[in-house]
C-alpha cells in the first residue's frame, strides 16, 4: 500500500490475500455440500447410497458369485474401503473438470482467486469422504476388524497423499478444460481405467507374483493397498514388501509432478480465464 493505494494486478490463481482464498473456498464448498444435503427429499442418504450401491453390486457379483476374495479375511471391508476411496477420486476430479466453466458467470464478472473454484470442488468431495469413512469404520467394527494402532499415524498420511494427487489433477484439468473441451470425456475414461488398474474389486494377491510390482506405478493403487494393509488386515501385502522400490519412486514422483504441474498450469491460465470462457 503506497500513497497511491494498491496496484491493480489482475486476476490470479490464489489472489493476493491467502485468508480470502481460504474463506471463499470454504464457503463455496460448504454451500455445495449443504445443497447436496438439503437438495432432495432424502438428502444425504443419496450421497451415501452411491458408494454403498456400487459396493453392493461389486460384492454380490465378484465376492459372492465369483469368489474373488476367497481366503481373505475382511474382504468385504476392504472392498468397501476401496470403493469409498475411489468415489472420492471420481467425485473430486469429476466435479472439478468443468467447475470453472460451470461458474463462468462468476469468473467473468467478479474478481476473486480463481483457484477457489476447483479447490472447493475437491473440498466438497473431502467432506463426503469424511462421512463415508465413518460408514467404513462402523462397518469394520461390526465385522470385527481389530484396531491397528499404527494406522492412526499412517492413514491420515495416506489420505493426504491421495488428496494432493486429486487436487493436482483437478487443477490441471479444470484449467485446461477452459480451452480444451474434450477433457471431460477423457477424464471419464481415465477414471474408469484407474478403477480397474487399482486392486479394489480384486485383491492384489490374486495377481501373478511378477505383475504385482508393476501395479505400484499407480499412486492410487499404492494408497489403497497400503490402507488395506495398515488399517484392515496386516496380512494383506504392503506395497513396501514387494521389492518394488523403483516403481514406488515413480508413483511418488507422479504425485509430486502432478501437483507442481497442476499448480503451475493453473497459475499461468488464471489471469486470462475470464476472456477465454
Amino acid at each position: 500500500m503506497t500513497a497511491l493505494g494498491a496496484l491493480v494486478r489482475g486476476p490470479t490463481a490464489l489472489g493476493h490475500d491467502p485468508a480470502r482464498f481460504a474463506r471463499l473456498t470454504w464457503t463455496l464448498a460448504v454451500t455445495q455440500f449443504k445443497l447436496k444435503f438439503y437438495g432432495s427429499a432424502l438428502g444425504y442418504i443419496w450421497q451415501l447410497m452411491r458408494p454403498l450401491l456400487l459396493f453392493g453390486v461389486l460384492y454380490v457379483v465378484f465376492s459372492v458369485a465369483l469368489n474373488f476374495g476367497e481366503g481373505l479375511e475382511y474382504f468385504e471391508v476392504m472392498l468397501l474401503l476401496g470403493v469409498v476411496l475411489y468415489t472420492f477420486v471420481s467425485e473430486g476430479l469429476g466435479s472439478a473438470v468443468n467447475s470453472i466453466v460451470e461458474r463462468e458467470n462468476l469468473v467473468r464478472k467478479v474478481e476473486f482467486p480463481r483457484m477457489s473454484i476447483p479447490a472447493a470442488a475437491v473440498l466438497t468431495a473431502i467432506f463426503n469422504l469424511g462421512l463415508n469413512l465413518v460408514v467404513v469404520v462402523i462397518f469394520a467394527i461390526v465385522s470385527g476388524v481389530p484396531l491397528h494402532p499404527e494406522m492412526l499415524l499412517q492413514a491420515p498420511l495416506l489420505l493426504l497423499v491421495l488428496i494432493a494427487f486429486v487436487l493436482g489433477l483437478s487443477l490441471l484439468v479444470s484449467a485446461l478444460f477452459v480451452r480444451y473441451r474434450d477433457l471431460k470425456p477423457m477424464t471419464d475414461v481415465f477414471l474408469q481405467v484407474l478403477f480397474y488398474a487399482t486392486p479394489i474389486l480384486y485383491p492384489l494377491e490374486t495377481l501373478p507374483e511378477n505383475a504385482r510390482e508393476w501395479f505400484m506405478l499407480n499412486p492410487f493403487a499404492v494408497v489403497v493397498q497400503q490402507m488395506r494393509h495398515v488399517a484392515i488386515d496386516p496380512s494383506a501385502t504392503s506395497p513396501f514388501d514387494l521389492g518394488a522400490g523403483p516403481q514406488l519412486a515413480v508413483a511418488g514422483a507422479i504425485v509430486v509432478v502432478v501437483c507442481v504441474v497442476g499448480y503451475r498450469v493453473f497459475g499461468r491460465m488464471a489471469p486470462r480465464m475470464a476472456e477465454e470462457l
Partner: protein
Amino acid sequence: MAAMEASGPAVLVDGLHKSFRLPHERVHTLKERMLHPLHRATHENFRALSPLSFEVKEGEFFGIVGRNGSGKSTLLKCLAGIYRADGGQAWIRGRLSTFIELGVGFNMDLAARDNIVINGVMLGLSPREARRHVDEVIAFAGLEQFEDLKVKNYSSGMLVRLGFSVLIHVDADVLLIDEVLAVGDAQFQQKCHDQFTAIRRAGKTVLLVTHDMGAVERYCDRAMLLEQGEMTMLGDPHEVGMHYLQVNFERERHEPIAAPTEPQESARYGDRRAEIMRTWFEDAAGLPASSLAHGQPCALCAEVVFAEDVDDPIFGFNLHSNADHNVLAASSERLDAGEGSGTFRAGEHVTFRVRFDNLLAPGRYEVTPAVARGGAWIDRRERLASVVVTSTHSTDAVVDLPYDVSLERSQNSSEALA
C-alpha cells in the same frame, strides 16, 4: 487511512491498455491440437482499450459513457481485476467493490439469507462481516417476509432488489458500477436514488458506467466519453452527455435508417389530385434525421406532386406522441393569412417544410402529412414517418418546455429558520 493525503487520487490510471485475441477458428479440443500440431491458430488482435490515463479524486462521482463496444466495460473489468491489462498500471486506494451485474452468483436453490452471505464473501468480506450485513440487506430490499424462501421462487423484481441491496451494503471506499440503475419499480428507483445520493454524501468514490445521460448529469461530478477504446472527452458531465448524444446522431445519419423506424402507413385518404410522395425530419443542420436532439431547431418536411391543377390547397402535419397525443398541428393556413396558397399546376413538385424548436419530451413520434382543399382531403397519409427525440432529461410530461425555477421565502419563515 487517516495518515494518507486526503486530496490524492482514489483511482489513478496510467497508460492502461488491453487487446483481445479473436481466433479465426477456435481450437476447442485436444484432439484437433494433436492432429494438427504445426497448425497455429491464426487470430486477430482486437484493441479494446487504447492506452488510457486519468485520475479520479477521492469522493468523486465519475461517469464513463460510450456506445456499446467502446471499451467502457473492458476498462471497468481491468480496474476491477477481472481482466489483466496488457500494459500500463492502475492504482486504487481503499477497499474496492465491483458490480458488473446484479446478483452475480446467486444460487437459485438457496435462501436469500445464504445468498447474501456467499455474495459478501465473494466480494471480499469475511463470513462474519457478511452475516452481520444480512438483516440490513434484506430490510433495504424489503424482503423480510421472504428471507427464507429459495431464490428461484423470487420474482425477477425481487431478485433485482436483492442484488441491488447487496451492492449498496458492501462497505467499500471505491465502487465500480456497470449499468445497474434502470431497474425495479418506481418506489425502488426512488430508494436507489436516495442511496446514490447517500453514497455521494458519504464521500465514497464511484466510477459509473452507463448509457443513461440523465444519471450522468444527476450524480456525476465529471464524466469521460470513450469511443472505440479511446478517451475522446473528459470533463463536465453535461457537456460530455451532449457530445455523446451528438456522436450517436452523426453515426446514425451515416448508417442507413433502420427498417423498424419506418412505421406502417396505417391509412390513406383523399381524391389524389395531389400526392404526398414522402415525408421526413430534418435536424438543426437541415439534414434528414431519424432522431432529434431536444432543444435544437428542427423541421418537418413533405414532398408533394400535383396531378391536376389545384387552387389554394392547404398543407398540414399532425405529430403524434407514442401515447397518441396530437402534440403538434401545423398547416399552411397560417402562412396564407386568408389569401390562399395560390394555384399549383399539374406536374408541379412542392416541398412543404415546418420549422420549430424541438421542445418535445423524449420519446418516439409519428407524423401524418396531409393536403386538403375546402374541407376535403386531397391526400392524407396516416403515420407515414417516425422520429425519436432524445434528451439528457427525462420527463413524464407531454412536452418538455423550458422553464426557470425560483423559490422565494416570505420574510417571516426565513426569520423563524434563522
